[in-house]
Structures are given as structure tokens and as C-alpha cells.
């Protein structure tokens, strides 16, 4: 049981907020606070989760409206003070739109909404998010998105790679990073990236959707246990 506190940001159109809350509760031993987007006060917490969904109906661009909501100014401020921030799916899109992470999630190269399990290679296990995995581990979790095609300019891409800021890549079941294993056209098969300081992670796949045996798998659970350990320390 940990006394560490977590918050889940809820936008109109979020739909993975409860899933992530359940995963966090299982890891932390108590429920996170659910914080509505219109609140400009975010309590001081040890971890902030920005969930998946279709905030503001994906109007204008996925994540663009949410990134400019009052609560995100608070999230950016707390991230700047080193508070861990995890953005999944639409949460990743919001984190790129508000500038916490570089790049943008564009329309999938196939133009199709993709909803299926994918294999991911854990590129690093020396982060607060991934330390309960092994480096090079292949995990299987779902993706469910229309705009997951990671794009950035060549200089930013080089900087991400040179500084080992890619946390997860789409891969074949044996861990090989191949074009065939890339579901959405993302540059370098990027599925998740870290900020420079390592306290902000954005990823398109959904670890919270496979974090309990009743859901058919637990490959996502180590992310939440790792975070619970990190913020309890």
C-alpha cells in the first residue's frame, strides 16, 4: 500500500479514463483522483495520467482542443517540476499538442482506424515507466486509433534516437522492427517517446487495456507497478 497520489485528467470525450484509473488503483492500492478538464486547479500529485479517447470529438486536430484547456497548463507546470506524466493514445496526442513531447500523431498511413493487438519492443528499462520490463522485451497490447502515425522533422527524430528517447517500437513477435510490423506508418516504428528529462511518456498503444487477467492478458500491468514503485520511493 502506497500513500502516493495520482490524478487522471478527464476531458469531454475521454473514454479510457476508467480503465487507467482501475490499472492505477490495482498498482497503488487506492484510487486516483479524477480531475475534470475545466478545473484550473490540479492538486499536487505524484503522477498524472492523460487518458485515451476522443477529447472534444477530435475537433480541429486530435488533442488540439484538450491541449489548450485550463487543466493542461497545470499539467505542463507540474511536469516541469518533475512530476511523472503518462499520456496514452489521445493522451499522447494531447502531450504533443501542448508541447510536452515533440512531433505529431498524423492520420494512419492506411487511413483506417486500427483496433487490434500489436507487439511492442521495450527499448529501455531504465525509466520510471518501464523498469519492470526487460530491455528488449516484446509485449503485446492493443492499439485503437485513427491518428497514430508518428511524425517529426529529421533533426528532432535524430535527437530522439541519439538520446534514446524512444521507449517503445512496433515490432514483429520476435522483436524485429520491420515495416510489416508498423501498423500506422510511424517514423522508425515509434510507438512511444519520452521527454528529455524522462518524466513524461506518451504512447499510442494501451497498456491499461491488458493489465488484468480478466482482460485476456497482463502485459500492460508492469507499467503501472513500475510507476507505483517509482512514486512511492
Amino acid at each position, binding site marked *: 500500500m502506497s500513500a502516493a497520489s495520482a490524478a487522471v485528467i478527464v476531458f469531454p470525450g475521454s473514454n479510457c479514463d476508467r480503465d487507467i484509473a482501475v490499472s492505477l488503483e490495482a498498482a497503488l492500492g487506492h484510487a486516483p483522483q479524477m480531475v475534470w478538464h475545466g478545473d484550473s486547479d490540479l492538486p499536487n500529485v505524484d503522477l498524472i495520467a492523460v487518458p485515451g479517447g476522443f477529447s472534444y470529438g477530435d475537433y*480541429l*486536430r486530435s488533442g*488540439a482542443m484538450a491541449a*489548450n484547456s485550463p487543466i493542461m497548463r497545470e499539467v505542463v507546470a507540474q511536469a516541469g517540476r518533475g512530476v511523472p506524466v503518462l499520456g496514452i493514445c489521445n493522451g499522447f496526442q494531447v502531450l504533443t*499538442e501542448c508541447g510536452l513531447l*515533440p*512531433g*505529431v500523431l*498524423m*492520420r*494512419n*498511413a*492506411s*487511413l483506417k482506424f486500427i483496433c487490434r493487438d500489436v507487439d511492442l519492443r521495450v527499448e529501455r528499462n531504465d525509466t520510471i515507466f518501464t523498469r519492470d520490463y526487460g530491455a528488449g522485451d516484446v509485449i503485446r497490447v492493443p492499439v485503437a486509433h485513427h491518428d497514430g502515425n508518428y*511524425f*517529426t*522533422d529529421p533533426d528532432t527524430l535524430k535527437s530522439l534516437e541519439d538520446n534514446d528517447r524512444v521507449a517503445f517500437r512496433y515490432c514483429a513477435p520476435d522483436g524485429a522492427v520491420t515495416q510489416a510490423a508498423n501498423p500506422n*506508418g510511424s517514423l522508425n516504428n515509434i510507438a512511444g517517446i519520452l521527454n528529455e528529462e524522462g518524466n513524461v511518456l506518451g504512447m499510442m498503444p494501451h497498456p491499461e487495456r491488458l493489465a488484468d487477467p480478466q482482460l485476456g492478458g497482463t502485459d500492460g500491468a508492469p507499467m503501472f507497478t513500475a510507476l507505483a514503485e517509482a512514486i512511492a520511493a
Partner: protein
Amino acid sequence: MKARVHITLKNGVLDPQGKAIHNSLEGLGFDGVEDVRQGKFIEIELADGDTEAAKARVANMCEKLLANTVIENYTVEIES
């Protein structure tokens, strides 16, 4: 006064929707289509005032919200 904002993908940014439109146009028998890029067009009604100031203000709107300058360019026209 009215502001018209065109938002287009930067050169070099892959545009799968533009490609799909291109394919459909060819499927309909329109010859000679060399490339299609799709974007957004936004009209904004503004209180009357100085045209240059309005243009600067709408450009600021583009920077902050309307465009994602990682992948998009924008142009602003003011019609008074």
C-alpha cells in the same frame, strides 16, 4: 471584417488523404491529375478594426491553436 485562413501540409509531409483523393479522381476518369494535397479552410468573423493588427492577431491564433506548425503552414487573408 472577415479572416480567411488556409492551412496546408508542409512540403515533404506525407498526405495519405490527399493520395486517396488523387486515386479516387483517377478512378472517376479525371486525367492529368499530378498531385493532390488536402488541408483546411477556416473563416473567422472579426470585429472591425485595423487590418494589419487583425492579420497579426489571426496569425497568432494559427500559431497557438489553428495550425500545428510541426506539419502545417498557414496563410491569412483579411477581407474588410
